[in-house]
Every structure is written in C-alpha cells, then in structure tokens.
C-alpha cells in the first residue's frame, strides 16, 4: 500500500518537474484550456444565476394571475370578475392589480410601473428601483418627470429608492399610488391590468384554473409554476445553445490537445526512451503522462472556473449578456447574487476535463510504448 502511494508521489514529482521543463509548449496548452473552461463555466454560472434571479422575482408573485384576452391579445380585465372568482370554492382572495410598462425616450429604457396598495406612496410621490435612480440620476426628494398617455407631463416626487435583495427584481421598478397610475395610463376605474388570485390549497390550482377558464371564456389564468418552468426551460435552452456553439471551441481545443500530445519532440521521445531503459515500465510512463495531464487539467479547470466566477458575479458577465439575458436592455449594471453549487462543477468537468483526458489517452500510450532498447541504439 505504502509503496503504491510512494510510487505515485515519486512519479507525480517527476511529472511536475518535466512540465516545468517544457514551459513553452505546456503554457500554450494551459492557456487555451483555461479559456475553454472559462467560457463554458461562465455560461453555466450565468444561466444558473439568471434562473435563480427569476425564481426570486417570482417568489412574491401570486399563485395564479388571471388576464383577459381580446382577439388573442391581453386586455384590461373588468374588476367585476374579481368578486365572481372570489366566490369560487377554494379561492382565498382575489386582488385586482394595476401595472404597466413605461418607455422613457431620454434614457431609452423601459420601466415597470406598479400601483401598490400598502404602503402606498401618497399621490404625487413614487418609490423607485436602484436601476431607475442610476439611469435617471435622481435620488430622494428629486422630481421625476413622466409623460402621461394624454401627452401632459406629470411631475412625481421620489419618496425613496428601494433597497434590493436582487437587482433583477427591483431595479426597474417605479412604485406609485393607484390613482396616479390610472391617471397616467388613463385606465378606467372599473378595469385592472390583471387579477392576482391566491388559493388555500395549492394542489387545487390546476382544477381552479380550469374552472375559471370555463366560467370566463375570455380569460387566461396563468400559474406561477408554469411561469417558473417556462423561465427555467428558456434559460436552460439558451445556455444549452451557447454550449452547443461552444462545443466547436471544445472540439478544436481537443484537436489541439491531441496534436500537442501526439507531436512529441525528439527530446521528449529520447527522454522516455531513457526512462524505459533504466527500468520504467510502460505503465509507469502512462502514469507519468496521466499525472502531467491531471496537473494541467486541474489547474486550468480551477483557474477557468475562478475567472468565470469573477466575470459573472463581479463584472456582470459583460461578455455574454446580450446572448443570454435577452429580455431587455434594461439594466446598465446589475449584479447577480454569487452562487455556485458542486453540481455545476461536475457538469463543467464533464464538458471539459473528460474530453481532454480521453483525447490524450492514445497519444500517451504511443509515447509510453517506445522500445526500451531505443536508448541503446541512439
């Protein structure tokens, strides 16, 4: 047992020293390796973080939202529906909600305007998300000009800037009183944007949704779980697409690694010949090559992952933002909550280290089967 461990240690030692002796060759391989790991890791981390953000966004969302459809498009829903839905067995409450999007031509960004009931800002006052504050350069007590649907400008006072758990949730929010919002968008009193429905027993959600769509054929109930699932699969799909695109990168890297491993220099071939002639066995040389590969793989993997982590969580993934986020050019700067779990690392390992290792088996074996008497015949 001890001997086996010592043998590994000795050979690992020698592997390290021979890697250092061939710095040039190994460094180029290592750099390419690190870049590949970095790219894929960044995508995996980023998708995962976005999914988490989406889950956070939806955390406070109601179990079910009921919209009204007119000619296949969403329309304002009559507040009268709320009472009828509330009367259904199993529904614990129904709340009409007023909200909308506002495009600000000056900053070129879209904001989400929400009417809040409790604790509602007084008429004429608003709470704004940190993103809005940053883009419009307004703070507490400043005036926020908004153009209403009638074309008349409305001046609103900023009551506070909202603290944020997750930037994605609150960055683009402008919270105002219901009256202001109705005035702004000219929404009649008897209509609302949609209805938020809460249900006593979540197992009955699906049944209730069916009931509602039967009772109000022009309505569309949307379940929170459905939204969550859609987000999940959209993000996974986007991440997967990017990985497929990057598969080309992995493939070319693998070919590069194969080439590096196959193209033994005369010096290296001679060295392996010497090792074999002084009593190294084919298995020992294979072990040497294995350790060399393992050292390169693990260090490149570690380095790539750490770089990706910084890029995603501290530099806001500026490289992939357009491809992966894709829902708006809303957030000039937003930070994801850092989170990595071992599962992602295993996936990354499978996508990078495994192909590399397999690509180097055959070349290593070729190198290891140099004739032991080759050294005698040089």
């Amino acid at each position, binding site marked *: 047992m001890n001997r086996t461990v010592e*043998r590994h240690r000795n050979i690992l030692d020698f592997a390290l020293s021979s890697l250092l002796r061939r710095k040039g060759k190994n460094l180029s391989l290592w750099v390419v390796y690190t870049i590949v790991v970095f790219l894929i890791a960044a995508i995996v981390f980023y998708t995962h973080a976005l999914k988490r953000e989406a889950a956070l966004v939806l955390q406070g969302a109601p179990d079910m939202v009921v919209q009204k459809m007119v000619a296949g498009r969403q329309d304002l829903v009559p507040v009268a529906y709320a009472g009828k839905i509330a009367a259904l067995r199993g529904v614990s409450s129904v709340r009409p909600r007023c909200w909308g999007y506002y495009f600000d031509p000056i900053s070129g960004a879209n904001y989400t305007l929400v009417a809040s009931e409790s604790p509602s800002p007084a008429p004429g006052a608003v709470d704004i998300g940190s993103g809005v504050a940053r883009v419009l350069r307004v703070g507490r007590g400043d005036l926020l000009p908004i153009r209403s649907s009638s074309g008349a400008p409305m001046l609103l006072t900023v009551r506070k800037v909202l603290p944020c758990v997750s930037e994605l949730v609150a960055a683009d929010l402008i919270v105002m009183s219901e009256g202001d919002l109705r005035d702004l968008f000219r929404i009649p009193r008897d209509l609302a944007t949609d209805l938020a429905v809460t249900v006593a027993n979540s197992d009955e959600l699906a049944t209730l949704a069916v009931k509602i769509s039967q009772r109000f054929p022009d309505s569309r109930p949307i379940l929170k779980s459905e939204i969550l699932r859609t987000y999940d699969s959209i993000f996974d799909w986007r991440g997967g697409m990017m990985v497929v695109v990057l598969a080309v990168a992995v493939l070319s890297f693998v070919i590069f690694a194969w080439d590096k491993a196959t193209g033994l220099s005369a010096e290296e071939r001679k060295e392996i010949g010497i090792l074999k002639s002084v009593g190294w*066995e084919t298995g020992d040389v294979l072990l040497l090559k294995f350790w060399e590969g393992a050292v390169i793989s693990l260090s490149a993997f570690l380095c790539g992952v750490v770089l990706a982590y910084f890029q995603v969580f501290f530099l806001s993934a500026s490289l992939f933002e357009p491809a992966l986020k894709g829902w708006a050019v809303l957030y000039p700067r937003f930070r994801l909550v850092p989170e990595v779990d071992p599962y992602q690392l295993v996936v990354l390992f499978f996508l990078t280290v495994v192909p590399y290792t397999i690509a180097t088996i055959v070349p290593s074996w070729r190198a290891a089967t140099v004739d032991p*008497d080759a050294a005698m015949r040089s």
Partner: protein
Amino acid sequence: MIELLRVTKSFHPGKSNQFTALQDVSLTVEPARVTALKGPSGSGKTTLLTLIGCMARPTSGRILLRGAGIRGIPAGAGNGEVEITGLPERFLTGIRRETFGFIFQHFNLVKGITVLENVMLPAYPTGERCGAVSQRAMELLALFNVARHAASRVDRLSGGEAQRVAIARSLINRPSIIVADEPTAHLDTRLSREFMQIVRSLKAEGKTILVASHDPIVYDSPFVDSVVEMRDGRILGGGATP
C-alpha cells in the same frame, strides 16, 4: 549466472528488410566476473546486451537467469533459475530494474534536471521512499567523487563526470549485474583507465559485469576475466578465457 542457449534475434521477420542481428548464440556469463564483448560495430554486441538486459525478447532460443532472486516469478528446477525468454514486458522491466544496472555509450542522462534526480530516476517506479533513495544516491555520488555537483544540472558536467553520474545511476537499485555498452567511447585514455578502476572495485563487491567494447583499454585490461569476440552476429571461438 546468465545462460544463453541458441539465441537468435531478427528484426522485421518475413519482410523484405529482414535483418538478423544475432544468429544461434550460446553463451554463459559467470557471476562475479567481468566479461567483455569484443568486436566491430554492427557485430551484434549491443543487441546481445539488450537481450540479456531484458530490454527485448529473442526471436528464438532461451535465456536463463540463475540466482538473480526475482520477485513475483516462481523459480524453476530448484536452483533459482528463471527463464526470461517468454516473459511479458511488464515483468522483464521488473527484472531489469531490480537485477541490472545500465551504463550507456552516450551516458543517457536526462537533460534539464539535476544530477541527484538523474541518479534517483530508476528508483522512482519502485515505490521506495524518496528520502531513502536520495540518501543512497548521495552516498553513491560521494563514492564517485561527484557529490558536489548533486544540485547542478547535468548539462554542466564534463564527460568524465557525466560518466560517473551514469555509473551512480546504474547502481541505485543495488543490481547484481552491471551492463555497459561502449562505456569508454567518449572518454580519453586517462578517464578510460579510471573507468576500469571503477569496474575493478565493482567486481570486488561481487557484481557481475558485462561490457561491450572495441576499445583495447577495456578488453585488454587485466581486470577482465573473459573476452567474447563477436562478428556478424555470431560468437568467434565461443567465449575463450585469456
């Protein structure tokens, strides 16, 4: 003792470039003696050494090692005799590592690593503790008067020093047989004589030594017990003792 019975070695058999390096060679090498293989280059000396040294397998014939004390392979016929002819590479390597020490014509030191590491190289795969090996290596380097170079790279050594490092390396696994192929080819007369002195001291320790050389300093040396002359892959005169 090493015994070769009608050993033939051909390269590329059955092809147009077939080449027979050794033909029907029978030879007995006595233990604790110095045996010199003499002959021009291309006479099959090196091939013979590679076969004896378990680096290659003969095409036909048998090679027996006696009293070598090889682990993992049951000895036949009660006298500790092992036939190495049909053994797979893995076991040949094992025997080679434990039983033989090699000194090569070009010294074959690995460039870019230190003298000490070079000497320790054959012991790495045995799984012996690193500390023990490096202590033994230092003792050997001291014995051959090159201990002061232990930490320097082999590229900086002179021919004679490289030779002595190579000898130290061949002894690291405490082999019972030393095989040397043209050891004096790159040495001047003084260093060649010095080498023969080392050979003498190794012989005094009870090691079996097998040297292939066409240098008279080697085969005419008084420390050589028997000279085997070779030509065209055959032995002339069959192991005559001077």
